[in-house]
């Protein structure tokens, strides 16, 4: 292919603070319109901003997690433009001196590790929302969201395909949730992505003209939008045209991007330092205190899961993608005392199946980590077999109680009484003389048939290991 795509992402994450970035108003999502818009948020004459300390901590936390430079002095600036959901007529943001600069995130794509640079991350305030429906040709403005703290994370144009962009985005998404600085909810707009896309002839070092894709609100759409845009630009260039620098909107319904002409008016934001906010300054001890709150990060956790629990890279990766999942897994291992690999199989296998089926997050699992541990314990102590355990888990998922209650109620306790199993084995052998004959003549595979018959006769409750032992003994004799 002649063309090389170049992609950089700008991600806005809403920080998980209780109150807004510059006011004591709540940031809770979903309130009635303008119920969470205080005097500062609606920019009444005379009001002033006061900075939220927690938002600063969260920005520093992020910076530390991506190995970035933490700037002990950063400056809030005003970005001036008129828009009805921007009450002051300017957005308080950071321009020349952001709080975080020069970090990186490693992504894995096609088995290789690639480092994506993070140019900067800066603090700013969110705008309100414009609602266009149902106001007889007018627009309604809800300012509840105005002033919600945002961290804007700007990557270097280091990605070369839509898939790489999505890998980076997923990695970033997992990271901010690990750090507990963002809930990552893309539907509610807590995690929003803009993509800068350009293409250039392979081998050329200078960048092509880029277009900016605005507010793409799912991983799938990010991938589709970027793919569409790359192809569109290649078509334009190969058709002898030139790419125009512009903002484009992805339309998921039509799977295409289109120009947002209304936003094309030449912008001149007239940034200048906000006179209401002196420079944001903190010393190394502040950074150190934040450092102490840093959790184990996904990559480190994955490596530890491999070495500590003997898991393979795939399982360790799956279990550490989300912090809640990793915590759940470790709780089960610790509470059950069972083989970590056995636990990993149950968590990544059966349990994940139920979660997917019901479209639930691990945090909302119908079977708690303690409950799953209780069940796995019963496998480990031979009260039930792995096969019966599937039935037990299904019952637990459907609210029939903990593992012991289900086993008791349904009578699923494994038969481990040697004489009882011997009796059933004897009956099975007596009822199948032909097969006994076959086995004696060297046909080993009928052995499985006998096991099946015994299990069938015991409704699966006979301890498979004991069944094997007894069968072997009887058939040898």
């Amino acid at each position, binding site marked *: 292919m002649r063309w090389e795509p170049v992609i950089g992402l700008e991600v806005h994450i809403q920080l998980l603070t209780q109150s807004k970035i510059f006011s004591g108003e709540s940031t809770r999502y979903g309130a009635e319109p303008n119920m969470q818009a205080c005097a500062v948020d*609606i920019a009444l004459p005379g009001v002033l901003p006061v900075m939220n300390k927690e938002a600063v901590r969260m920005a520093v936390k992020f910076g530390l997690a991506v190995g970035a430079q933490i700037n002990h002095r950063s400056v809030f600036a005003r970005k001036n433009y008129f828009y009805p959901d921007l009450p002051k007529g300017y957005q308080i943001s950071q321009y020349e001196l952001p709080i975080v600069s020069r970090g990186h995130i490693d992504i894995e794509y096609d088995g290789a590790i690639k480092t994506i640079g993070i140019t900067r991350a800066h603090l700013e305030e969110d705008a309100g929302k414009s609602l266009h429906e149902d106001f007889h040709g007018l627009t309604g403005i809800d300012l509840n969201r105005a002033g919600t703290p945002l961290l804007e994370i700007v990557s270097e144009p280091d990605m070369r395909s839509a898939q790489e962009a999505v890998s980076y985005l997923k990695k970033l998404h997992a990271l901010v949730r690990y750090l507990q600085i963002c809930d990552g909810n893309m539907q509610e707009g807590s995690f929003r992505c803009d993509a800068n896309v350009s293409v250039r002839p392979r081998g050329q070092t200078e960048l092509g003209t880029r277009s900016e894709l605005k507010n793409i609100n799912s991983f799938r759409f990010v991938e589709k939008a970027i793919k569409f845009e790359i192809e569109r630009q290649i078509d334009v260039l190969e058709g002898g045209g030139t790419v125009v620098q512009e903002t484009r909107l992805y339309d998921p319904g039509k799977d295409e991007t289109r120009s947002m002409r209304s936003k094309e008016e030449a912008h001149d934001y007239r940034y*200048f330092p906000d006179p209401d906010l002196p420079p944001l300054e903190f010393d190394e001890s502040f950074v150190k205190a934040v450092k102490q709150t840093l959790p184990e990060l996904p990559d480190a956790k994955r490596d530890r899961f491999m070495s500590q629990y003997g898991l393979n890279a795939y399982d360790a990766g799956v279990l550490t993608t989300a912090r809640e999942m990793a915590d759940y897994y470790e709780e089960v291992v610790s509470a059950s005392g069972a083989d970590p690999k056995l636990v990993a199989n149950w968590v990544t296998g059966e349990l994940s199946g139920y979660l997917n089926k019901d479209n639930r997050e691990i945090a909302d699992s119908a079977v708690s980590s303690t409950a799953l541990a209780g069940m796995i314990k019963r496998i480990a102590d031979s009260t039930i077999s792995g096969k019966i355990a599937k039935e037990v888990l299904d019952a637990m998922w459907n609210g029939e109680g903990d593992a012991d209650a289900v086993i008791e109620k349904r009578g699923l306790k494994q038969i481990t009484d040697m004489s009882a199993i011997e009796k059933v084995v004897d009956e099975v052998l007596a009822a199948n003389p032909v097969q006994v004959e076959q086995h004696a003549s060297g046909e080993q595979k009928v052995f499985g048939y006998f096991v099946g018959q015994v299990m069938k006769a015991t409704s699966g409750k006979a301890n498979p290991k004991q069944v094997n032992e007894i069968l072997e003994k009887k058939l040898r004799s």
Partner: protein
Amino acid sequence: MSLERSIVKLSAALRAKEVSSVELTRRYLERIERHGELNAFINVDRERALAQARSADERIASGKVGPLTGIPLAHKDIFCTDGMLTTCGSKILANFVAPYDATVIERFNAAGAVILGKTNMDEFAMGSSTENSYFGPVRNPWDRDAVPGGSSGGSAAAVAAGLAPAATGTDTGGSIRQPAAFCGITGLKPSYGRVSRYGMIAFASSLDQGGILTPSAEDAAVLLNVMAGFDPRDSTSVDRPVPDYSAQLDHGIKGVTIGLPREFFGEGLGAEVGLAVEAAIDEYKNLGCEVVDINMPNCSLAVPCYYVLAPAEASSNLARYDGVRYGYRAPEYTDLTDMYKKTRSQGFGTEVKRRILIGTYALSAGYYDAYYLQALKLRRLIAEDFRRAFESCDVIVGPTTPTTAFALGAKVDDPVAMYLNDIYTIPVNLAGLPGVSVPAGFDSAGHPIGLQIIGQYFDEGRILNVAHCYQQATDWHKRIPNGFE
């Protein structure tokens, strides 16, 4: 019966129950009505004032009395006052009922003071004559054909005419000190950060500072004691103890060193103003002060520097007046942009628009470095001039304004001439220092002359002390304009 002007004495009379707050409030309300031709007030709420006075009288009766309990005050209409119209002298806020109190208002209310009404001002505090008010110009009580100065012209005229014992004001480039000088009263601009800006409608945020216009320095101290102090709602408010300013008034000033900036006495200074200031300096020498010459080389560029920074900040501060959430909205428009433009063009006056345009230009792409950044650097040099000067003196003294009050309409068509009125006051705002203007005589036309005393950061106590000692030795501040006895 002549009106008692001193707040200290009024306060004593209230406490001694020689007069009630209701009586006092009625007396001022009546004077405000009688002298409506000065146009000093935009809005007077009689019922509210009397209700506050009654509750003050109850407090006095129960012995819970502070120095301002029951004292009627006027507030510049730039301070948001819960439940009252707060217009900032603009059509764009002509219907705006503030839904909250500015910190300054809250503090005076808590001290038991009575709100007589809201005073007239240059629209958004942009002006030096109070001719830029949507509610019409204010007249100077000393000469009704002259301006009272601005932008706190309504407050200055009200205090000079005895329509209020004292009034609040704001000072971005001289808006308290210059009208105080023009109206023959005392006007204090505290250090930047001393008085909360919360609820004070912003003109230029890094320069604006609330202050007071009073008959004397002694009264200013009483009001500053209430007004000053840390406010967690203002990120530029300074958390620093507030001394008792009244306690420092009578400290002797023998040995205090007064710096005279050579540049404040050169060409451009009116001859009569110069003579009055020289006389005042002689008075200080008599009082035992040392006088030294100082140099402020960069202050000569304060006006150009200010006319970049103040409009730049204002252009952004005034973007919120868009007709969406409060205030004026044009009655007819075709679309959103048209609504913005018509609302703002109809809602703002010419001078406000002019400054928004200048500020927008100074911040726009390609001009930022040459204008805005250069102005910020000059601001540093000017602040350095003061820092260096204060190494050799305790206070800096000079004229407040180059001339006395000029005729109404004389400078409305020449913005630059109007701006140059503030050449001696602007450098103080750029540096963020405290300054006070005190009456120091009259010119041949009978217009008052102001003397400016500038102090170091948070040295309000010192400049009030220096002003008070002058007022103990002179009686310029006790002169009352004809017809306002």
